[in-house]
């Protein structure tokens, strides 16, 4: 017989046999079944022979024929793996350039994801440090509000006493109440947000002591401070036993520091700065008329159910509500400490802690995922290219008898090594560079503590395995499935892997485009927001708040005699510092709008632009409490046509006449859309602050000068002097933070994409180096060579531009709309700039290689063969 037989036994059965059969029996057994097959083929035909063959194989699947692993074989495997590691290290060293690109790319991506992990983890496990976590609750309740039911985190003090007296199952409890108390330490006076708590507080929550005793709060005349407060009051010295005078109500009282707590590294909802026994608030409460409400934490006794506590607490409500008809409690709800911060947004007033910003977390996670994907693509691309250089090695190993799985294992191990290096570098990078930078932008205090952070280890392990597999499997499979015959005949076709590489590179370029557009847009938006027209003249204006009513005349006199003060108006609301939404009614139309109480002269001095009607007239007392000056959005929202002879609108039960309409002005930072805003005139006697128009000059020097002057009038009581133009600075700074994150992301994405491109081009060039040599000999100049390299990547860039830019417009406008109320539209300009940046960097990258090609001497490259 010659050539291949026409029919062959079923492959799967044959493979199955080869897989399970003992090596020493395989040849004989396989030979027998094959012989039987051909015998039956002649006798009964293909179908029947195949069936019989399969049956034979299955029948032969007996214990005595099945392969068994011997111990010796395993030892051999260990040796083999050790060898793989050795070869892997050598290969990494031999291919320094691609390895460096890979490691660097992966390290940056890993560093980003470590930062994102740290940030998100801390958010997610906020407050988890407390040992009694499972038993700690914030007592909240639902109450009937005007229009709906709301949740309140504050509990009435009297109700707290009743709960403690009658509800069983509470092991420990503490109130939690902030009060700004005057503080005097060694003669220096200031004021401090002090936290008033019960004596159980330090025991139910878990805190660490620097010095002193956890029982300190059981002594009413002792206070507990944390390291920050210790630094502020006592400097380097430990404050234990020293005195702090606190002014609670109108009374100064002397306290001694009983304990100093460690600053919390993890984020926590509990703000310990200066802790004082709640008794002192009780005294204040007895003196004051109003019944104070406070946050109230309880720790249940082990085994007590939430429902039991709640039903016992709810039983107290009917009696309580009878005495308090204004804000009746509907029912209690216990908020576990685990979810307290996350659910803070549900609690209208008196929430403790704040929910992590899901948006920020999402953006962070998305960015680090971007990076990881980019780096993985980089890796796959460069690996695929590198494999072409290692064809001979693969061929030889296969001929010697390496199995596909063994080859794949070797490539995966090399990949694992590389990823491990990248991980090491990534941890270093994030702890030394990225985290500090991120802390600066985001205002965190994240550090990496590998020794005491099992969760981080778990994360690192998981991401190591993920990246190893995600980046390594495809190249390993490709590498191990080449046939030695095609390799040695030099007939290897790399069309498929080249297609894959191009797809990945395109994807990288698209991602880079998106991030660049994002960065450009954020830069532009921030710039336009900073130069925003506020709708009034905010320059040369200063706000002054009164310590209390008794200072009104003395302050006014002092300010009026100040030569720098050109003009002044008294007011209650200061535009830009607070919001005050109320519902207004125009017949059936009901809309919420801002409602500001201002002095008669305030709108004029503010400099809002009048559209129709008039501003308040200081000589008309009738304007007070009756008239409104509204903005254009107000009229639009309430569907009112302005008529100078009389336009009215209803708020609550009062009917106001609208006397003037002004252009929309920014009463809040531009992250909020301007809605209706109404100014109501109030009498001078109700004003709590002044608005000053200053002469031209250094506004900050003027502010200091005014502050010094007023300090002489009110040395003890606090007041504030602020520059109006600085109003939105916090917002702008925050937005600059986001912009910086975007710039950073774009830079990294571009860097990764450029590295990927560089790696591919350089491998491409070095594998076609003879080609270039021949071309040079035939007279190609630098431009021709550049063209041939560039042409190879033209589709990548085309796709990146034509897919990336629409995608970017889609995504980025969404993001901008989420963050800003006003932003410039993504026009042709920003897109053009973005594409220019992308192409510029890409060309520069390719140019490095082109220069290399230009410089080579064709004689050197062509001499080798």
């Amino acid at each position, binding site marked *: 017989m010659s050539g291949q037989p026409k029919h062959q036994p079923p492959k799967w059965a044959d493979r199955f046999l080869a897989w399970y059969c003992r090596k020493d029996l395989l040849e004989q057994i396989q030979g027998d079944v094959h012989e039987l097959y051909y*015998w039956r083929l002649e006798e009964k035909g293909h179908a029947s022979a195949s069936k019989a063959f399969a049956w034979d194989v299955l029948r032969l699947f007996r214990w005595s*024929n099945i392969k068994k692993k011997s111990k010796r074989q395993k030892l051999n495997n260990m040796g083999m793996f050790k060898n793989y590691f050795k070869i892997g290290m050598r290969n990494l060293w031999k291919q320094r350039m691609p390895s460096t690109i890979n490691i660097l790319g992966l390290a940056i991506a890993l560093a980003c994801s470590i930062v994102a992990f740290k940030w998100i983890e801390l958010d997610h496990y906020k407050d988890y440090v407390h040992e009694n976590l499972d038993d700690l609750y914030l007592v909240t309740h639902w109450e009937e509000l005007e229009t709906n039911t709301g949740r309140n985190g504050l509990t009435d003090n009297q109700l707290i006493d009743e709960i403690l007296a009658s509800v069983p199952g509470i092991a420990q409890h503490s109130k939690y109440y902030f009060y700004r108390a005057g503080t005097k330490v060694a003669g220096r006076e200031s004021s401090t947000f002090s936290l008033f708590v019960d004596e159980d507080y330090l025991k139910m929550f878990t805190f660490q002591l620097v010095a002193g005793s956890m029982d300190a709060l059981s002594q009413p005349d002792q206070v507990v401070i944390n390291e920050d407060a210790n630094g502020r009051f006592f400097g380097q010295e430990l404050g234990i036993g020293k005195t702090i005078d606190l002014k609670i109500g109108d009374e100064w009282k002397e306290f001694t520091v009983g304990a100093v707590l460690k600053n919390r590294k993890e984020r926590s909802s509990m703000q310990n700065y200066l802790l004082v026994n709640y008794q002192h608030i009780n005294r204040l409460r007895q003196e004051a008329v109003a019944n104070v409400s406070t946050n109230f934490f309880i720790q249940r006794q082990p085994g007590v159910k939430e429902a039991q506590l709640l039903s016992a607490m709810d039983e107290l409500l009917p009696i309580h509500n009878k005495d308090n008809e204004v804000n009746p409690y509907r029912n209690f709800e216990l908020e576990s400490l685990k979810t307290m911060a996350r659910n803070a947004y549900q609690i209208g007033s008196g929430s403790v802690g704040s929910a992590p910003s899901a948006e920020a977390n999402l953006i962070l996670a998305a960015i680090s995922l971007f990076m990881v994907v980019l780096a993985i693509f980089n890796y796959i691309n460069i690996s695929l290219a590198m494999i072409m250089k290692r064809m001979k090695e693969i061929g030889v190993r296969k001929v010697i008898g390496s199995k596909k799985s063994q080859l794949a294992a070797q490539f995966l191990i090399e990949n694992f090594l590389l990823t491990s290096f990248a991980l090491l570098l990534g941890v270093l990078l994030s702890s030394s560079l990225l985290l500090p930078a991120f802390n600066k932008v985001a205002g965190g205090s994240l550090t990496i503590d590998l020794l005491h952070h099992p969760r981080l280890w778990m994360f690192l392990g998981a991401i190591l395995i993920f990246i190893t597999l995600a980046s390594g499997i495809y190249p390993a499979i490709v590498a191990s499935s080449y046939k030695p015959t095609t390799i040695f005949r030099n007939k290897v076709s790399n069309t498929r892997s080249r297609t894959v590489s191009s797809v990945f590179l395109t994807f990288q370029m698209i991602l880079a485009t998106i991030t660049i557009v994002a960065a450009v847009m954020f830069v532009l938006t921030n710039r336009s927001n900073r130069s925003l027209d506020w709708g009034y003249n905010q320059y040369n204006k200063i706000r002054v708040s009164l310590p209390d009513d008794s200072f009104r005349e003395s302050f006014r006199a002092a300010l009026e005699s100040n030569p720098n003060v050109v003009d002044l108006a008294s007011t209650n609301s200061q535009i830009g510092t607070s919001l005050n939404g109320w519902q207004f009614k125009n017949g059936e139309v009901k809309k919420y709008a801002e409602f500001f109480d201002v002095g008669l002269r305030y709108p004029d001095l503010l400099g809002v632009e009048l559209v129709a009607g008039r501003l308040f007239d200081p000589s008309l007392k009738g304007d007070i409490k009756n008239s409104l000056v509204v903005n254009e959005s107000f009229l639009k929202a309430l569907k009112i046509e302005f008529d100078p002879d009389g336009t009215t609108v209803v708020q609550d039960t009062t009917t106001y006449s609208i006397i003037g309409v002004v252009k929309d002005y920014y009463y809040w930072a531009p992250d909020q859309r301007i809605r209706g805003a109404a100014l109501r005139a109030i009498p001078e006697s109700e004003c709590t602050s002044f608005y000053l128009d200053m002469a031209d000059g250094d506004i900050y020097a003027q502010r200091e000068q005014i502050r010094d002057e007023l300090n002489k009038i009110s040395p003890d009581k606090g007041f504030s002097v602020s520059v109006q133009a600085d109003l939105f600075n916090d917002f702008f700074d925050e937005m600059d933070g986001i912009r910086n994150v975007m710039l950073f992301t774009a830079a990294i994405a571009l860097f990764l994409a450029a590295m990927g491109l560089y790696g591919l081009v350089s491998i491409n060039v070095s594998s076609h180096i003879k080609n270039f040599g021949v071309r040079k000999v035939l007279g190609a100049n630098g431009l021709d060579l550049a063209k041939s390299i560039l042409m190879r990547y033209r589709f990548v860039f085309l796709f990146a531009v034509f897919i990336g830019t629409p995608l970017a417009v889609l995504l980025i406008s969404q993001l901008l709309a989420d963050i800003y109320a006003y932003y410039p539209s993504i026009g042709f300009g920003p897109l053009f700039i973005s594409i220019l940046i992308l192409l510029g960097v890409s060309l520069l990258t390719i140019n490095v290689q082109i220069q290399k090609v230009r410089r080579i001497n064709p004689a050197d490259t062509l001499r080798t063969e």
Partner: protein
Amino acid sequence: MSKGNHIGELEELILLLVGVLRDEAYAVGVLQEMKDQTGRELNISAVHAVLNRLEEKGFVTSEMGGATQERGGRRKRFYTLTAAGRQMIDQVRSVREKLYGQLGTNAIYSIA
């Protein structure tokens, strides 16, 4: 008597066939010969099992032989009868004949 000195009916037949086939005694050969000579169709797995057992008991020995095209170039394992095997066959035969002799011509048997 140890167990090794007993052989079953199939073992006896295959042992005989190994002896009969001489140089051509390998698993598939045995299988085909069995079919030709006795009409019994065995599966290859059973043949292998019996041959292995016989080899363990020391009645046959084996060695790898030459390759053929039908087998995709794989070699055959050829079995040869050992002295012990031959002795076993003789012993089985003599027992049979002795018993057969005692049967005589006037043995009673049922027609049904």
